[in-house]
Protein backbone atom coordinates (compact mmCIF):
# COMPACT_ATOMS: atom_id res chain seq x y z
CA UNK A 1 0.00 0.00 0.00
CA UNK A 2 1.81 3.08 -1.21
CA UNK A 3 1.16 6.46 0.33
CA UNK A 4 2.86 9.59 -0.95
CA UNK A 5 4.11 11.80 1.86
CA UNK A 6 5.09 15.42 1.23
CA UNK A 7 7.88 16.53 3.51
CA UNK A 8 8.32 20.16 4.66
CA UNK A 9 11.68 21.88 4.22
CA UNK A 10 12.54 21.64 7.91
CA UNK A 11 12.26 17.83 7.86
CA UNK A 12 14.09 17.22 4.59
CA UNK A 13 17.30 16.71 6.54
CA UNK A 14 15.81 13.30 7.36
CA UNK A 15 14.92 12.46 3.76
CA UNK A 16 18.18 13.40 2.01
CA UNK A 17 16.54 16.55 0.75
CA UNK A 18 13.62 14.76 -0.92
CA UNK A 19 10.37 16.76 -1.04
CA UNK A 20 8.22 13.63 -1.14
CA UNK A 21 8.76 10.05 -0.03
CA UNK A 22 6.68 6.90 -0.15
CA UNK A 23 5.49 5.01 2.87
CA UNK A 24 3.14 2.28 3.97
CA UNK A 25 0.60 1.82 6.72
CA UNK A 26 -3.01 1.14 7.52
CA UNK A 27 -3.15 4.27 9.66
CA UNK A 28 -1.14 7.48 10.03
CA UNK A 29 0.55 6.07 13.14
CA UNK A 30 1.74 3.07 11.13
CA UNK A 31 2.83 5.29 8.28
CA UNK A 32 5.00 7.43 10.56
CA UNK A 33 6.52 4.29 12.12
CA UNK A 34 7.27 3.05 8.60
CA UNK A 35 8.92 6.38 7.69
CA UNK A 36 10.98 6.18 10.86
CA UNK A 37 12.46 2.87 9.72
CA UNK A 38 13.95 4.52 6.62
CA UNK A 39 14.36 8.08 7.92
CA UNK A 40 15.42 7.75 11.55
CA UNK A 41 14.48 10.71 13.71
CA UNK A 42 11.56 11.93 11.62
CA UNK A 43 8.80 10.33 13.72
CA UNK A 44 9.64 12.24 16.88
CA UNK A 45 9.34 15.51 14.94
CA UNK A 46 5.74 14.68 14.00
CA UNK A 47 4.48 12.59 16.88
CA UNK A 48 4.63 13.21 20.61
CA UNK A 49 3.80 10.04 22.57
CA UNK A 50 0.65 8.68 20.94
CA UNK A 51 -0.52 11.99 19.49
CA UNK A 52 0.39 14.40 16.75
CA UNK A 53 2.49 17.31 17.91
CA UNK A 54 0.33 20.35 18.57
CA UNK A 55 2.16 22.58 16.09
CA UNK A 56 2.56 20.11 13.25
CA UNK A 57 -0.27 19.96 10.75
CA UNK A 58 -0.90 16.71 8.88
CA UNK A 59 -3.28 16.59 5.94
CA UNK A 60 -4.78 13.54 4.29
CA UNK A 61 -5.77 14.40 0.73
CA UNK A 62 -5.96 18.10 1.73
CA UNK A 63 -7.99 17.56 4.88
CA UNK A 64 -6.51 18.39 8.29
CA UNK A 65 -6.45 15.03 10.08
CA UNK A 66 -7.43 16.72 13.36
CA UNK A 67 -10.90 16.82 11.83
CA UNK A 68 -10.63 13.14 10.89
CA UNK A 69 -9.30 10.59 13.38
CA UNK A 70 -5.98 12.25 14.15
CA UNK A 71 -3.12 9.82 14.24
CA UNK A 72 -5.55 6.86 14.01
CA UNK A 73 -6.89 8.09 10.64
CA UNK A 74 -7.13 5.16 8.22
CA UNK A 75 -5.21 5.27 4.96
CA UNK A 76 -5.86 3.74 1.56
CA UNK A 77 -3.56 2.96 -1.33
CA UNK A 78 -2.81 6.08 -3.36
CA UNK A 79 -3.57 8.54 -0.56
CA UNK A 80 -1.53 11.70 -0.24
CA UNK A 81 -0.27 12.87 3.12
CA UNK A 82 1.18 16.36 3.59
CA UNK A 83 3.11 17.43 6.67
CA UNK A 84 3.41 21.15 7.41
CA UNK A 85 4.68 22.74 10.60
CA UNK A 86 2.30 25.41 11.88
CA UNK A 87 3.31 29.00 11.34
CA UNK A 88 2.68 30.37 14.80
CA UNK A 89 4.11 32.49 17.57
CA UNK A 90 3.38 35.62 19.48
CA UNK A 91 4.50 37.60 22.45
CA UNK A 92 2.86 35.27 24.98
Amino acid at each position, binding site marked *: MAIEVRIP*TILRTYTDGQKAVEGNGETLAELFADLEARHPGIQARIVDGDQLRRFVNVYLNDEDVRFLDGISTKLADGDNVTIL*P*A*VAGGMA
Partner: protein
Amino acid sequence: MLTITQSLYDQIVAHAREDHPDEACGVVAGPVGAGRPERFIPMLNAARSPTFYEFDSQDLLKLYREMDDRDEEPVIIYHSHTATEAYPSRTDISYANEPGAHYVLVSTADTDGAGEFQFRSFRIVEGEVTEEEVKVVEAY
Protein backbone atom coordinates in the same frame (compact mmCIF):
# COMPACT_ATOMS: atom_id res chain seq x y z
CA MET B 1 20.64 41.45 5.62
CA LEU B 2 17.06 41.83 4.48
CA THR B 3 16.55 43.93 1.38
CA ILE B 4 12.92 44.91 0.88
CA THR B 5 11.06 47.41 -1.26
CA GLN B 6 9.41 50.43 0.32
CA SER B 7 6.09 49.21 -1.04
CA LEU B 8 6.30 45.78 0.67
CA TYR B 9 7.54 47.43 3.87
CA ASP B 10 4.54 49.75 3.82
CA GLN B 11 2.12 46.87 3.20
CA ILE B 12 3.44 44.93 6.20
CA VAL B 13 3.19 48.00 8.43
CA ALA B 14 -0.32 48.78 7.18
CA HIS B 15 -1.48 45.22 7.86
CA ALA B 16 -0.05 45.32 11.39
CA ARG B 17 -1.76 48.63 12.12
CA GLU B 18 -5.04 47.45 10.66
CA ASP B 19 -5.23 44.33 12.84
CA HIS B 20 -4.07 46.07 16.02
CA PRO B 21 -4.84 45.24 18.88
CA ASP B 22 -4.66 41.66 17.51
CA GLU B 23 -1.42 40.30 16.15
CA ALA B 24 -1.18 40.41 12.37
CA CYS B 25 0.74 37.80 10.39
CA GLY B 26 1.68 36.91 6.85
CA VAL B 27 4.29 35.96 4.33
CA VAL B 28 6.19 37.60 1.52
CA ALA B 29 7.02 34.93 -1.01
CA GLY B 30 9.80 35.01 -3.56
CA PRO B 31 11.48 32.78 -6.15
CA VAL B 32 13.19 29.73 -4.61
CA GLY B 33 16.83 30.44 -3.84
CA ALA B 34 16.73 34.11 -4.84
CA GLY B 35 16.22 35.51 -1.34
CA ARG B 36 14.13 38.30 -2.85
CA PRO B 37 10.75 39.05 -1.23
CA GLU B 38 8.19 39.78 -3.96
CA ARG B 39 4.63 38.62 -3.35
CA PHE B 40 2.83 40.03 -0.32
CA ILE B 41 0.43 37.50 1.23
CA PRO B 42 -1.37 38.74 4.36
CA MET B 43 -2.72 35.82 6.37
CA LEU B 44 -5.61 35.53 8.76
CA ASN B 45 -4.58 35.15 12.38
CA ALA B 46 -6.70 32.12 13.26
CA ALA B 47 -5.96 32.76 16.95
CA ARG B 48 -7.39 36.33 16.69
CA SER B 49 -5.40 37.24 19.74
CA PRO B 50 -3.34 40.20 20.95
CA THR B 51 -0.68 37.78 22.23
CA PHE B 52 -0.63 34.87 19.77
CA TYR B 53 -0.82 34.18 16.07
CA GLU B 54 -1.30 31.05 14.04
CA PHE B 55 -2.08 30.61 10.36
CA ASP B 56 -5.35 28.76 9.80
CA SER B 57 -4.51 25.17 8.86
CA GLN B 58 -6.42 25.17 5.54
CA ASP B 59 -4.94 28.55 4.59
CA LEU B 60 -1.50 27.19 5.44
CA LEU B 61 -1.95 24.21 3.12
CA LYS B 62 -3.24 26.42 0.32
CA LEU B 63 -0.35 28.85 0.79
CA TYR B 64 2.34 26.15 0.61
CA ARG B 65 0.67 24.44 -2.39
CA GLU B 66 0.52 27.74 -4.20
CA MET B 67 4.15 28.60 -3.44
CA ASP B 68 5.19 25.13 -4.53
CA ASP B 69 3.34 25.48 -7.85
CA ARG B 70 4.96 28.85 -8.47
CA ASP B 71 8.46 27.76 -7.41
CA GLU B 72 8.37 30.17 -4.52
CA GLU B 73 9.36 29.97 -0.90
CA PRO B 74 8.49 32.06 2.14
CA VAL B 75 11.26 34.69 2.04
CA ILE B 76 9.71 36.70 4.87
CA ILE B 77 7.42 35.48 7.63
CA TYR B 78 6.12 38.50 9.48
CA HIS B 79 3.98 39.14 12.51
CA SER B 80 3.30 41.96 14.91
CA HIS B 81 3.68 42.36 18.62
CA THR B 82 1.04 44.68 19.93
CA ALA B 83 2.33 45.61 23.36
CA THR B 84 5.98 44.58 23.43
CA GLU B 85 9.11 45.25 21.41
CA ALA B 86 9.71 43.78 17.96
CA TYR B 87 11.96 40.98 19.17
CA PRO B 88 11.26 37.22 18.91
CA SER B 89 9.63 35.85 22.04
CA ARG B 90 10.31 32.39 23.42
CA THR B 91 7.12 31.26 21.68
CA ASP B 92 8.32 32.70 18.36
CA ILE B 93 11.63 30.91 18.68
CA SER B 94 10.17 27.53 19.59
CA TYR B 95 7.76 27.55 16.61
CA ALA B 96 10.18 28.97 14.05
CA ASN B 97 10.37 26.24 11.40
CA GLU B 98 11.77 28.04 8.38
CA PRO B 99 15.52 28.42 8.88
CA GLY B 100 15.82 30.00 5.43
CA ALA B 101 13.29 32.76 6.10
CA HIS B 102 13.67 36.29 7.41
CA TYR B 103 11.45 36.62 10.45
CA VAL B 104 10.15 40.17 10.42
CA LEU B 105 8.65 41.54 13.59
CA VAL B 106 6.87 44.81 13.81
CA SER B 107 5.66 46.40 16.99
CA THR B 108 2.44 48.33 17.01
CA ALA B 109 2.96 49.20 20.67
CA ASP B 110 3.56 52.80 19.56
CA THR B 111 -0.16 53.20 18.97
CA ASP B 112 -0.56 52.79 22.72
CA GLY B 113 1.98 55.50 23.33
CA ALA B 114 4.63 52.92 24.27
CA GLY B 115 7.32 54.23 21.96
CA GLU B 116 8.23 54.39 18.32
CA PHE B 117 7.05 51.98 15.66
CA GLN B 118 9.59 49.20 15.15
CA PHE B 119 10.35 47.06 12.09
CA ARG B 120 13.10 44.49 12.66
CA SER B 121 14.31 41.35 10.94
CA PHE B 122 15.83 38.17 12.36
CA ARG B 123 17.08 34.76 11.38
CA ILE B 124 15.90 32.01 13.69
CA VAL B 125 17.89 28.82 13.20
CA GLU B 126 17.72 25.92 15.64
CA GLY B 127 16.60 28.17 18.43
CA GLU B 128 19.25 30.79 17.82
CA VAL B 129 18.19 34.35 17.00
CA THR B 130 20.35 36.67 14.93
CA GLU B 131 19.19 40.18 14.14
CA GLU B 132 20.01 41.50 10.71
CA GLU B 133 20.08 44.86 9.01
CA VAL B 134 16.98 45.93 7.06
CA LYS B 135 17.65 47.79 3.84
CA VAL B 136 14.64 49.48 2.26
CA VAL B 137 14.93 50.20 -1.45
CA GLU B 138 12.66 51.72 -4.09
CA ALA B 139 13.00 48.66 -6.39
CA TYR B 140 15.20 45.59 -6.82
